């Protein structure tokens, strides 16, 4: 009996050692859930600790890709945040995509007309920086209308500084960071950018980094 107990304890010790060796984050790259998109990304998925831009028109599919990646990043227990600067995220669709709404924090700064105005865009960026840097969330999606909406216009130098701070916050927090933007919208300095577009043959996606057009792919065919 005593031998059995020792064996059990030794087995448990070994199990603890094994679990402790397990990295805090199971994977550095988070798959988007779409093979064509993953194929365009270095590492086969969205990296943690760096901002990735998803740029596209209003119905280009970028939100669905972001939510899929968020679900993968959250796993069974993690938390995620969505900074909804446009006030357009529709939770029933989010739940239908398989994301656990209980573990999704939605941050929706209110503007004078219910949406995000100029001051609210700054608030939303500030909130994004805080969420990204906290390390409490496995993934953060930032959907703040900058550049595409004249109401949300911010000074260039100020905006640049905020975006650079956002990038530093993502590095500090180490979680998945996705920026949803418009095709002609402001770019986050140094971020990998996926441009999604809707053509006659279906949704298309291509990856760009800085000035380079790195790849070109077809997301799906209708």
């Amino acid at each position, binding site marked *: 009996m005593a031998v059995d107990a020792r064996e059990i304890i030794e087995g448990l010790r070994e199990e603890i050692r094994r*679990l*402790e060796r*397990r990295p*805090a984050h199971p994977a550095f790259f988070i798959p988007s859930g*779409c093979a064509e998109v993953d194929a365009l990304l270095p590492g086969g998925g969205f990296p943690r600790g760096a901002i990735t831009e998803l740029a*596209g*028109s*209003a*119905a*280009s*599919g*970028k*939100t*669905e*890709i972001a*939510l*899929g990646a968020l*679900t993968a990043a959250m796993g069974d*227990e993690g*938390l995620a945040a969505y900074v909804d600067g*446009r*006030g*357009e*995220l*529709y*939770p*029933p*669709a*989010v*739940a*239908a*995509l*398989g994301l*656990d*709404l*209980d*573990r*999704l*924090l*939605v*941050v*929706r*700064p*209110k503007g004078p007309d219910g*949406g995000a105005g100029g001051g609210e865009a700054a*608030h939303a960026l*500030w*909130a994004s920086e*805080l*969420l990204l840097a*906290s*390390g*409490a969330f496995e993934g953060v999606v930032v959907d703040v209308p900058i550049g595409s909406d004249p109401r949300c216009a911010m000074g260039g130098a100020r905006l640049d500084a905020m975006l650079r701070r956002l990038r530093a916050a993502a590095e500090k927090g180490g979680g998945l960071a996705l920026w949803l933007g418009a095709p002609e919208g402001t770019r986050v300095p140094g971020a990998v950018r996926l441009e999604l577009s*809707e053509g*006659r043959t*279906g*949704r298309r996606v291509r990856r760009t980094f800085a000035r380079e057009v790195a790849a070109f792919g077809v*997301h*799906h065919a*209708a």
Partner: protein
Amino acid sequence: MQLELGVGRAEARPGAVFPRVLGLCLPDLSLQRVLRAREASGGDQPLDRRPLATVRDGCVVACEAEARERGVRGGEPLVQARAACADLEAVPVDDAEDRAVLEGLAEALLVIAPAVEIAGPEVLLLDGSGAHLFVRHGDDGERMLIERAVEICAEQGLRCRAALASGRTPARALARYGPALASVPPGAAAAALSALPVAALELAPDLERRLGALGVRSVGDLARLPPATLAHRFGPAGLAAWHLAQGDDPAPLSPYLPQRLPQESLDLEGPAESVEQLLFGLRRLADRLGARLAGRGLGATRLRLALRLDPSGEERVEIAFASPTSTGSRWLFALRERIGTLELKAPVAAVALGVVEAAPAPAEQLGLGERPQRLAALEAVLARLAARLGSEALFAAEPVDRHRPEAAYATGAFAAKRRGETRSGRERKTRSAARGGPSSVAGWAALPADLVRPTRLLARPRPLVALGEGGRLTALRLGERTVRVLALSPAERLCGEWWGEPFDRDYHRARLEGLGDCWIFRDAADGRLWLHGFFD
């Protein structure tokens, strides 16, 4: 008959086993309470500090050691006390406040005892039957229980005497009149009580006076008297007193049951004008409040902070938390942020911190690989966001069974669920597999209606103008822009709410050239077309 009864019950019960009870006595509680409040509010001692005494009806109840050294005695008139100590500061006794302190301590002690009784103005009795659970590495469980109880008192800013014995009367008597810390083994209560005055048994005043007249001074004197004689002379009360003197008290505890969520308040020594000053006091309040909640197995999900301004006015704020917690230090993140955003018109004279909403707090045992700082970081970030953006700007959504699309979800406070509280992974996987993912858009018309919802819903639908040929919709005009309709799903009718604001809409998923999949509807009321969302 009376004598027979007395003789029949006059045998001490040598084999009887009485419950183990831990008695805690908080000597001079009124004075301790005042000193505790001053320590929590100010910090620095003024150079001209005067000796302090609490008074009731013009008589001294308790006084500080310095006043005692100068000749002040408890029970003497204040005038007489001031003759001995001219600069004596007198503070009236507040029985209600003292009782509140005892109740708070009783709640905090529930963390180590299954039942706590408030047994008098300065005494608490704890059920010590679970002392064996404190045994660790061969330590004596009862000694550990006593030490832990004294520690909790100290954390609450109070000092106490403690005695663990069998039965409530020995425990109470030894705590009040015995040594500072005492542990009496079962069966030895009579010997431990024998040196104490008869007053320790808290008999009826008349009986105590009559015993005194007979020369009975100590409990030992009473225990040595023949029980039959006591029963003959004093009746059942005399016999009961003899049993108590033998340490024989089978009466159970009468547990204190908290009726309200706890609140702690503090009058500041001087009006506070800085956040740091306020936080100094709030830290103590938060610790006390947290201990009280922990004793009840609860954690706060919403706190209310009330600041009384000097000379008048009050500011109240409520702070919600992502998960129930009784850890005061985690509340301080939120309190600091919230106070920092307040624009107070006057200095703060008093603060009160109360629990508005509480929930059972799970034990905070971290799993392997979990980062303890993550929980603190979550509270901190939520507190800062709520302070700057307002708590209504942060939410967790919950689907609601409503047909009106814009009312199909509700917002609630974000409360991060722990392991086992979320939907099972299996269910999530099933739902995930059933969804219409990006690559399955071609087949979306066949999906169940509740899955075909746009990821973005416009707060205000935008008007569309239909353009067609031969009764077929070929294009839509959105503002100045005209886009071709590439595909159009069959209509999904959503209608209802006839009792309030009825609506009747035919929704379509329309693929528009250069724009993508959009959610449009035709309002049956006027036949107009609207853009309501994007399948982004």
